[in-house]
């Protein structure tokens, strides 16, 4: 073992000895793990880390899991852990980091992002929710949409327009919003699956202190880009075992159910199998690049390809099920539980996976990003970059 690994093992042992998981309150344990710098070892000391390389983290997680320690339920706070924390780490003051990051990691405070609007989807930089300066605070008005977790969240990353007379990219600013502030109204937004996974958030004269601004006034687009790059890594990365992920259900059905083995679907199944394995290896290669500190641009392509695979796998599952695929389990409005993948019928997954190519940047936007930033192709002629936002056709 390396010196680092020995030191980590010693620290883990210290936490487990002082706070035996079986007799320790869940939150108390998580706070102790955070205080010991073992929450995310690549974060700075005092913020749950030890300033180490991120490649040590999977082993730390594995040792805690093997010891029966509780985890911080990461699926219930994906935006906090994956996007808010890196943004706060980069742009917030040390005092704000101390306030926000510990309860973020333990899951005591959930985060969401208030970026998209009904009129600003792929064209996020056209966002129109307004923020007007009033003394030490800003007064925010507008409507945000597609907000996962807003109904559970205490904090939100908020993109607003502070300079409507400037061209659209230059007039945005970025804040952290306390969702308990008067004037915040979170309403469920029902989706085609029947569930309400997302929300609409209405902001009516909501006061946000200027000290909660991340980045300079007018730098909101830059800060948003930093957040979104983390989102795409979070959505696209990682490599499981062979036949894990979206392909798993369909190959299981094929193996276990002779009547599902329709000759006309055999080659489609095998194409999916090879696509899934190619994607798994591509994710592994991206992970290896990150480990040696040389991340490639492959993440954008992975997100795109993963969406296509997940959609095709769910759709093939319906074909293999035949008449059973005509049934649906439950159209009633409910809030999904993110702690584990919901146990739903194939039709649910067919519908839910249609969102994979929309959420977190549509596949069309991903193709623009790849062709412009990776391949260096020019953008389409733009009519909206040099005129004041207020004068854009809406």
């Amino acid at each position, binding site marked *: 073992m390396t010196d680092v690994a020995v030191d980590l093992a010693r620290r883990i042992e210290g936490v487990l000895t002082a706070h035996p998981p079986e007799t320790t309150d869940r939150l108390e344990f998580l706070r102790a793990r955070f205080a010991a710098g073992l929450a995310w070892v690549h974060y700075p000391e005092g913020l749950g880390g030890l300033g180490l390389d991120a490649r040590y983290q*999977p082993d730390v997680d594995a040792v805690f899991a093997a010891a029966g320690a509780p985890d911080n339920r990461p699926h219930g706070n994906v935006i906090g852990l994956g996007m808010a924390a890196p943004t706060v780490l980069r742009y917030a003051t040390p005092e704000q980091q101390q306030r926000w990051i510990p309860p973020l990691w333990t899951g005591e405070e959930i985060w969401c992002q208030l970026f998209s609007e009904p009129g600003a989807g792929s064209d996020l930089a056209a966002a129109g929710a307004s923020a007007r300066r009033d003394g030490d605070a800003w007064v925010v008005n507008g409507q945000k949409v597609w907000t996962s977790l807003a109904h559970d969240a205490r904090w939100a990353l908020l993109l607003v327009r502070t300079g409507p007379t400037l061209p659209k990219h230059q007039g945005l600013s970025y804040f952290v919003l306390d969702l308990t502030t008067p004037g915040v109204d979170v309403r469920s937004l029902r989706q085609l699956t029947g569930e309400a996974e997302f929300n609409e958030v209405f902001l009516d004269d909501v006061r946000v202190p200027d000290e909660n601004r991340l980045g300079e006034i007018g730098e909101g687009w830059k800060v948003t880009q930093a957040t979104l790059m983390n989102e795409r890594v979070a959505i696209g990365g990682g490599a499981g075992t062979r*036949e894990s992920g979206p392909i798993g259900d369909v190959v299981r059905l094929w193996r276990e159910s002779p009547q599902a083995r329709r000759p006309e679907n*055999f080659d489609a199944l095998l194409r999916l199998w090879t696509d899934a394995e190619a994607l798994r290896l*591509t994710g592994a290669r991206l992970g290896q690049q990150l480990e040696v500190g040389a991340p490639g641009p492959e993440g954008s392509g992975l997100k795109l390809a993963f969406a296509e695979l997940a959609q095709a796998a769910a759709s093939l599952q319906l074909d293999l099920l035949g008449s059973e695929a005509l049934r649906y389990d439950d159209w009633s409005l409910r809030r999904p539980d993110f702690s584990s993948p919901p146990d739903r019928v194939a039709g649910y997954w067919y519908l839910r996976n249609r969102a994979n190519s929309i959420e977190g940047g549509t596949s069309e936007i991903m193709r623009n990003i790849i062709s412009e930033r990776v391949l*260096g192709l020019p953008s*389409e*002629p733009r009519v909206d970059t040099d005129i004041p936002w207020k004068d854009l056709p809406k």
Partner: protein
Amino acid sequence: MSQIPSLLYADVEDDLRRAVRVMLADRAPIEEILDRSDQEDAYGKGARQIWSGLVEELGVAALAVPAELGGAGASWREVAVVLEELGRGVVDVPFFTSAVLATSLAHEAGAIDLLGELATGEAVGAVVASFAAPLVPPEGLTWDGRVVSGTVRTVAGVAEATHLLVPVADALLVVAAEQADALAVPSLDMTRRVADVTFEGVEAAVVAEGPEVVVALARSADLAAALLASEQLGLAERVLELTVDYLKQRRQFGRVLGSYQALKHRLADLWTSVTQARAVARYAAACASATDGPDASDLSVAASLAQAVCGEVALRAAEECLQLHGGIGFTWEHPAHLYVKRARTDALALGTPSWHRRRLADLAGLPHPA
């Protein structure tokens, strides 16, 4: 997390790539390969000099051969890097047929003397089986224990070969190339041509006999399929570059073609596929190089996956290159057709992508439909 081997390029592999690329830039410009692609004896007209440089100066034929058998004691991973570079330039040298196909078979069958000569370049080998079939003993040959007779059609790399490895039922033979009658035929792939090989009662030396021949052929087939993916990867990368470069300068309707979203999105999809082809080809090369453990035992899956994925990606890349070059891409003077012909042929060589998908079904335990 998982036991996936390194899919990155090691420093030594980067160094090797640089050396090969510098040499090929100097000696194998695409214009010259294009010029001689329809000439008889293209090998004598220039490719032989490239081959000498690669083999004698860079020692690329020795890479995968163990040091104690006269080789460089590197691995198939390094061979894969050479193949990427040769694929980029559709270079008309017998590297794949001799340094991969014949060398892997000689190694697996224990043809030690020939292996040493293949490594140094004294010998150039070819395996007498149709290039468009998974590697099995071809039909049409008779072997009576002393002489071999018969004809095998569409064998790759014969014109350049000094030694022919001839698989027959239950034996692997070696024959000096001049003892065979090799009839060069017009070939779909102009930079890796095929010939019909006829033996008229030729005395042959037995390299191996019995079940070990079957084992050697099977493993050699996997190695060759695994490695061919790197040639396909190099080809795909190169034609994507050519297409992107062209679309950056070609103007129609007053705009650079590369600014049209309809075209940009196609290239973004292609780039995404190429990144997957790279991961798959690297995995295949890593499994080919492993001598034991899970990577070695996954070679058959890795090889068929590599052909199912890289065969199609290279072909799509070459076809997109042709299409997006428009009229100029369809001309004889533009090299796009060399890439299309190579990619189309590579997707036939050693089994088509469809064939490899069916094989993966068996390897992965996915039952065929009733």
